């Protein structure tokens, strides 16, 4: 566990010291606190569970149901339509393009986030004064509010008054910096960069935590054996953070796939759907074009993808400990 973390606190009220000589009442013997207290457990879980049933599971059930129904403009279910919504949606070339685009968006963004995360974590894993401060600064993009950061990026990218293009000119990188949000083909990459930017801190921190959990002994042994830095990296660090790498990439995949804020704030999916992913297209289809049935179909598709990821995550999470 690194610095502080969540080691069990040592605080214990003095009046509550466990005394050896105290005879435990029968009901407290053994693993008493975990004994058959099912009733109390259900009572404790009930409020949260009821709440989630009403506002999570019921809505999920309804959205699956309505994907099989024809709907009116207000979203009311009019009659059972079987797979009609699915068929109409998959017949649209726009939708198929957006589905493909979502995959491209996710894969590209996660790959770059992972790369940046690994680089930054390796850099922060070196000891020097001010390292903690550097770490704190790196957290900031993650800590700030995503919808607000996205809107700030519009201003950063501004072709005329934006300081990004100004800096590119001033540093002599290019005298004709691109119009980031106005060039078809480039917009997608300008927007995906903002998503990547938001995701880098998380990757960095998780990788760093993983690297710091790798035993120092291994490195010392390697030093004795005369291994060089690269060998140590490949044979100790990389295998050491394999699990962390898996979990972080998986979670990042989920979040990237679900990144509504960046796209909606920056481009609303335009120009001509070139920055839509399934999540934003779902929102537009439902709330702006009022095609509720098709929106529901997209929600179901998303749900299937997310459930699959959740399943893998739980497998990974439970593999160690717990």
């Amino acid at each position, binding site marked *: 566990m690194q*610095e502080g*973390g*969540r*080691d069990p*606190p040592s605080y214990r009220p003095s009046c509550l010291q*466990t005394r050896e000589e105290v005879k435990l*009442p029968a009901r*407290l013997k053994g693993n008493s606190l975990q004994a058959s*207290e*099912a009733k*109390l*457990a*259900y009572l*404790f*879980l009930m409020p949260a*569970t009821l709440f*989630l049933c009403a506002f*999570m599971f019921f*809505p*999920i059930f*309804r959205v699956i149901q309505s994907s099989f129904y024809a709907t009116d403009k207000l*979203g009311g279910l009019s009659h059972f339509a079987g797979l009609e919504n699915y068929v109409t949606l998959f017949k649209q070339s726009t939708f198929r393009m957006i589905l493909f685009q979502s995959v491209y968006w996710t894969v590209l963004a996660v790959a770059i986030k992972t790369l940046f995360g690994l680089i*930054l974590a*390796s850099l922060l894993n*070196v000891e*020097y004064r001010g390292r903690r401060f*550097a770490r704190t*600064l790196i*957290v*900031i993009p993650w800590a700030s509010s995503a919808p*607000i*950061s996205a*809107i*700030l990026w519009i*201003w*950063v990218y501004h072709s005329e*008054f934006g*300081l990004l293009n100004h800096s590119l000119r001033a540093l002599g990188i290019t005298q004709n910096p691109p119009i980031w949000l106005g060039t078809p083909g480039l917009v997608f990459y300008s927007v995906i960069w903002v998503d990547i930017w938001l995701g*880098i801190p998380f990757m960095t921190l998780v990788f760093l*935590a993983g690297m710091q959990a*790798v*035993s120092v002994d291994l490195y010392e042994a390697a030093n004795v054996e005369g291994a060089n*830095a690269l060998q*140590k*990296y490949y044979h100790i660090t990389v295998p050491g953070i394999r699990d*962390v790498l898996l979990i972080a990439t998986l979670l990042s995949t989920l979040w990237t796939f*679900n990144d509504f804020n960046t796209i*909606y*704030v920056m481009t609303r999916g335009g120009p001509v759907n070139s920055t839509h992913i399934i*999540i934003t297209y779902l929102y537009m289809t*439902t709330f702006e074009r009022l095609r509720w049935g098709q929106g529901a179909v997209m929600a179901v598709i998303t*749900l299937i993808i*997310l459930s699959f*990821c959740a399943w893998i995550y*739980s497998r*990974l*999470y*439970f593999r*160690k*400990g717990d």
Partner: protein
Amino acid sequence: MLSRGRVGRGFVIFITIVLIFFLLFPFFVTISTMLKPAREIYATPPYWIPKGLALYNFVNMWKFHPFAQYFTTSAIVAFSTTALTTLLCVPAAYALARFRFKGKKIFFFAFLAIQMFSPIVVIISLFKIMVFLQLLNTYFGLILANTVFALSFCTWMLSGYFKTIPLDIEEAALIDGCSRLQTIQRIMIPISAPGVATVLIYSFILAWNDLIFALAFTTSVNKTPVTLGIQNFVGRFYSQWDYLTCAAFLATIPVVVMFLFIERQLVTGIAGGAVKG
């Protein structure tokens, strides 16, 4: 890996500084812009250091736009979400951490899975529920929706924290005649203060940063949170970047500060077994 020698370390520090500058670029831009008078913001070519300090941007932003209203809404929604989430998640987390009962695995998996779902999956049906319950354009509607998404993660996180606290502390209290509720109140919650704080802050930030529920469930100005209100500054033909950057700065500072307190907890909580090594 690059730690060898003074040169290596110097190189590492240099690259780190460059990358940090790169990552914080938008915030430098924001600070530069919010301090400039309008005519300097729209100067060509642009420049970094403001010539005149325009702190009146903050005053005007406050005066000419309903920002007090936006901030109030955000605060009400975020604080209430925090309260509701905590109320629901503490007992649930305790049960998951301490009791043995049938179906525990299912509960575990459900809480884990739900935190993966995005609001967008349920937003269509949630919207209809809000219509049915007449909760559109109400604080309560936003609070409910945000709580749904804060709840599962907080329960998960807190139950993990509870588990790290040794059983015998609680047993001792039970032997001394505390009831179960008293034990939770007087022993578990005080000892788990860092865990509980994480939950409080996490749900606050989640609600404060929400855009999608506000977008879908509110239309009136006096139920608009900052994240949505700020979007109005960017128009098709005319944008007010001076006011926008001021508002963005004010809306971001509190969450950044709070986040820095819980960031370590979040990382260990999320990465779970893998970091415990």
